[in-house]
Each structure stands twice: as C-alpha cells, then as structure tokens.
C-alpha cells in the first residue's frame, strides 16, 4: 500500500515538475495547498571513521510527517555550508523513511561534491513534500570537521593475520636455510613430468607446454613458469623438441626468457631459438582452435597444461587424447578441475600447482614456505573446530572476529 502511494506521488511529482517547466503559473492548485511538514529533529553530524577524510555522516530523527497525511515528507535534502550565515548548498538527498546520510566527498577540488578536511562545516536537513516549494528546514548543526585517519582500525584482524602468516613464513624459511630436513610428501603429477619427457624422447615427438589463459600477474602462471623452467632444462638435456604457444604477450616474453635460461643451464644454449615460444592470440577460442591444430598436426608425445584454464580445458584435453598424448594438468581454477581430472592422466589440484614450483626447486626456502602454509592450515582446522563449538553454543563474539569485510 505504501509503495502504491509512493508511485502515485512520484508520478504527480514528475507531472508537476513538467508543468512547472512549461508554465510556472500553471502549478496544480492542490500542490500549493500542502501545509508545511514538521522538520526533523536531533540532527547530529560526525566524521566517518577509518577513511581517508573528506566524508561525514549525518543522523537524525525523521519528521513526524514521514509517511502520513497530505503533508507527507517525500525526501530529505541535505545542505552544507562553510559558515552558518553563508548560503547552504544542496549536497544530496534520501527518500522518506531514512534517518542517515553518508556525505562522502570526491577528491577533485573543483567539484561541488568536494568536502574539505579540517575545516568547520555546517549542515542542515530539509524535509521536502511533493511540492518542492513546501519544506521544513532543521536547525543548523555545526561546526563539524572531517578528518583523515592514518590507520583503519576495522582491519586489525587482517593485519594480525598478515603479521602471523608473514612471521611463520620467515621463521620456517630461516629454519630451512640453516639446513633442517623438511619432509614433503610426493606428488604424482610431478614425478609423472619426468617420465613423460623420457617418453617423448623415446618416441621422437615434441612436448607441448600450455599456460592456459593466465596473464603474467596470476599466481598460477607464475607457478607455471617455474615448472616450465624445469621441463625446459630436461628437454634441453634430452634434446627433445618443445612447443610453447602463448595466449598472453607478456607471458610469452617471460616464457622465452625462462626457456632460454634453462637451455643455458643445461649447457645447450645453441639449441634454443625464439620460435619455440610464440604468441598466438589473446582470444580464448581462437587460441584453442590454433592449439588443437598444433596437437593434431605435430602429435606431441606429452601435453602439459599448467596455469589458469577456463572452458577450453576439456576441448584441449580431449583433442590431446585423440592425438594419443600423455597429459599432465594443473590449475587453480576450481570449475575446470573436474575436466582435467577426468580427461588427463595426472592432475595437480589447486594448491598443489603452487606447491609444485617449490617441489621442483627443492630449495630449502621454498620448502620452508610450504611448511608455513601447513601450519596455517592447521590453524584453520583448530579455528574451525573452536568456531563451530562457539557457533553451536551461541558465542557470537568468537564468530564476530571474522567479520572483517570492511
């Protein structure tokens, strides 16, 4: 019922605004006869916490005429000024039923919406009826100032998490550097890579290495670079052929560098040429079409898919199966994991892909960071158990710790 009334009034409002434009004298007489509403009360204005300044929050008790009678308040208009005497400027409005307005300024000084920091400001809120002429102004509130905060208090839990995790990592990296033996469980997908390269050599067929659609900034792509460097090193040693078609130009440049230095490390810098790693196109399906063609024409012995994959995962993996290649995949794209699991011989699941780069490096520092990750997981398990107990006994204080969304 209330909405119908609102619609009706809005229609009237637009109608009257239209009339006003055509002829200012022709305003409907009903609209002129509205009695002024009661103003709002208890206006308070305060600085918005945890922000970079230039923002204030207004709160008030709504007008008694909010939602009743013909002098119903339609909206509240907010006015601001830098002194109580100079003219007030309308800075925004909210529909009826509201009792709060966040006056958030923008940073361009020329703009009307700019709110200066550390300056006395005065506010006023008008209760406006259907006829914009009929309104009631509140008392002026002020002076009030907007401040910039140097630290976001609401984000303390996140900062704590950052520090704890960073500390753990530093600790284990130092421990690992000192030479402590760290156990790491084997990953089938990683040991399969070595066998697959051997197989390609025996068959005299190339190895196809695919980054997927990741860009150079994605964590999965970066992990994939490390795996590629290992694969390339072995390929260089065995003198097998390597094909790396790329989707992203930046990934291509990096991959060229990675392969080049792997060939150098393996002692065969002359065997490297820039044609091994090449760009195709930055379009998902054009890229897939081209890679499919490569698979059926070059018949690689092994296809390695490491990185970010989307819908193309199954098209690639099934075409690879048709070509009779051994296929090893790894991705952190949860939606595509099922397809790789089903169509490939070995698959690194999510986090395993990142861990793989640490495995292959076998550098103690990398293994140290894995250990830190495991401790964080143990913390998750403990927190979950505590949390679930708390949740079941109605201890909301505990679960609220995690309400750090803003």
């Amino acid at each position: 019922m209330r909405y119908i009334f609102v619609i009706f009034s809005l229609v009237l409002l637009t109608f009257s605004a239209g009339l006003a434009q055509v002829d200012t004298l022709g305003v409907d007489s009903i609209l002129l006869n509205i009695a002024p509403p009661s103003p709002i009360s208890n206006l308070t204005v305060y600085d918005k916490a945890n922000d970079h300044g230039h923002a204030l929050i207004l709160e008030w008790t709504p007008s008694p005429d909010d939602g009743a009678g013909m002098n119903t308040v339609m909206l509240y208009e907010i006015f601001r000024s830098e002194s109580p005497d100079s003219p007030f400027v309308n800075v925004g409005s909210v529909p009826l039923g509201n009792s709060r307005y966040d006056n958030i300024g923008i940073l361009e000084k020329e703009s009307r919406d700019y709110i200066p920091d550390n300056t006395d400001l005065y506010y006023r809120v008008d209760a406006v009826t259907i006829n914009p002429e009929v309104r009631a102004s509140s008392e002026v509130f002020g002076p009030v100032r907007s401040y910039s905060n140097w630290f976001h208090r609401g984000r303390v839990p996140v900062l704590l998490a950052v520090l704890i995790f960073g500390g753990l990592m530093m600790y284990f990296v130092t421990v690992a550097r000192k030479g402590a033996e760290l156990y790491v469980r084997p990953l089938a997908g990683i040991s399969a890579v070595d066998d697959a390269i051997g197989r390609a050599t025996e068959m005299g067929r190339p190895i196809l290495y695919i980054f997927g659609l990741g860009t150079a900034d994605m964590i999965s792509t970066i992990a994939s670079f490390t795996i590629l460097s290992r694969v390339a090193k072995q390929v260089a040693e065995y003198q097998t052929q390597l094909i790396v078609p790329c989707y992203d130009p930046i990934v291509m440049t990096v991959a060229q560098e990675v392969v080049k230095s792997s060939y150098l490390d393996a002692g065969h810098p002359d065997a490297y040429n820039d044609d091994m790693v090449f760009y195709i196109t930055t379009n998902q399906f054009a890229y897939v079409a081209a890679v499919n063609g490569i698979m059926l024409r070059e018949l690689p012995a092994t296809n390695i898919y490491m990185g970010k994959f989307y819908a193309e995962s199954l098209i690639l993996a099934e075409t690879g199966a048709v070509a009779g290649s051994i296929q090893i995949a790894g991705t952190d794209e949860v939606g595509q994991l099922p397809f790789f699991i089903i169509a490939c011989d070995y698959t690194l699941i999510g986090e395993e892909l990142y861990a793989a780069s640490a495995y292959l490096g076998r550098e103690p520092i990398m293994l140290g960071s894995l250990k830190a990750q495991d401790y964080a997981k143990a913390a998750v398990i403990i927190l979950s158990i505590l949390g679930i107990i708390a949740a079941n006994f109605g201890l909301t204080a505990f679960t609220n710790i995690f309400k750090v969304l803003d």
Partner: protein
Amino acid sequence: MKRGVPLIITFVVGTVLIFSVFIPPMENLGENFTLFFDIIAVFAFFLGGGNLLRVHLTKLSRRKRDWEYSIVTIVGFFFMLACGLFKIGNPGDISASLTAEGSWFQTIYESMFVPLGSTMYALLAFFVASASYRAFRAKNREATILLLAAFIILLGRTPLGTFVTSWIPDSFSIMQIPNLAIWIMNSPNLAGQRAIMIGIGLGVVSMSLRLILGIERTYLGGDDKL
C-alpha cells in the same frame, strides 16, 4: 641492474600495496595501480601482434608446412586492424563507439568472430560426451565415487530423475534423485569446493609473499649472465 632492480621494484610495490589497505589516505593507490596495469597491457598487445606477424611471415617465407594458411592469418589481421584503428565504415565520427552498428569492425565481429568463437565453444558439448564415455569407468574406489556423483547429478537435471524415483515415500524423500542431487550440490560438493578454495587462498597468500620477498624469481628469467 638486470635482476636486482626488478626484485626491488616488486618488493617496494608489493609492500606499499599491502600496507595501503590499512592506511585510509592511501586507499586509492591500488585503484590507480590497476589502471596503470591496463595501460601497460595494451602495449603488450602490440608486442603480441608483432610476434604473431613474425611467426607467420617466417612460415610464409620458408614455405613451411601449411604456409598457405598463414596468408589467411596475415590478411585477416591487417584487415581487422585497419577496420578497428581507423573505424572504417563507422556511422559516427572519431568519438563514436568502436562497436557502433554498421561499422566494418562490428560487422566482422558479428559475422565472423561470433560464429567462430561460439562454434568452438559448442564443440564442448561433443567432448563432454566423449569424455564421459572414455573416462567415467569404475576402475577403483575414487573413480567409482566420481562416476556415481556425476551420474546422480546428470539424472537429477532431467525429468527422468523425478520420474524413476517418484514412488519413494516422503519419509525417505532424500532417496529421490532430484533431492539427492540438490543435497550433493549443497553439502559434499560445497565442502570439497571450500577445502580447495581455502587451500588456494593460502597458496596465493604464500606465493604472493614469496614473490614480494624475492624468494620466487623464475618469472624474471635468467641470471645476469645472459
């Protein structure tokens, strides 16, 4: 210079961005940095285009296998590029939208780009079927679980699932395929997704830290020797 400077850049940029989250006046920093990133990416596209041309021109000049098709790629590339950069056939002036109705760019997009892309994507329907036939076999316990879960969900997505199990009484209604399918999606499936996501979340966090601290540096390529 070749390796030290990049490591310092990564460290500084990374740390500044992490701490900007806690310091409200710096909140816009991440925003601007991502704007920068897009601009850099456009330069990279030109790098890619250059490489593409190089690959196909080499293929053409050396008369490698299938060189004839490289002509198609090169012609297609230049034609589309000309249509796009010069807004050929665009009904408006220079400020008009690139994809305005009637421009050559939009016409090529609709009559070539769209059918090619969607057909390639549609091939998935066939591959989903061939993969199910080839790979869903009850070889061991894990494979059987995979197979059963997939089968129940498939059944639950069709009226057939409702039909074959509608006789089951209400007190055992979880055994009705549609209910079971929803239950699997909302419970074990959810648990699995969540476990993977927590793992990935941690992995990303730890990898990011390794990158910022300069522990992970393969992405920078070789050493100064090169």
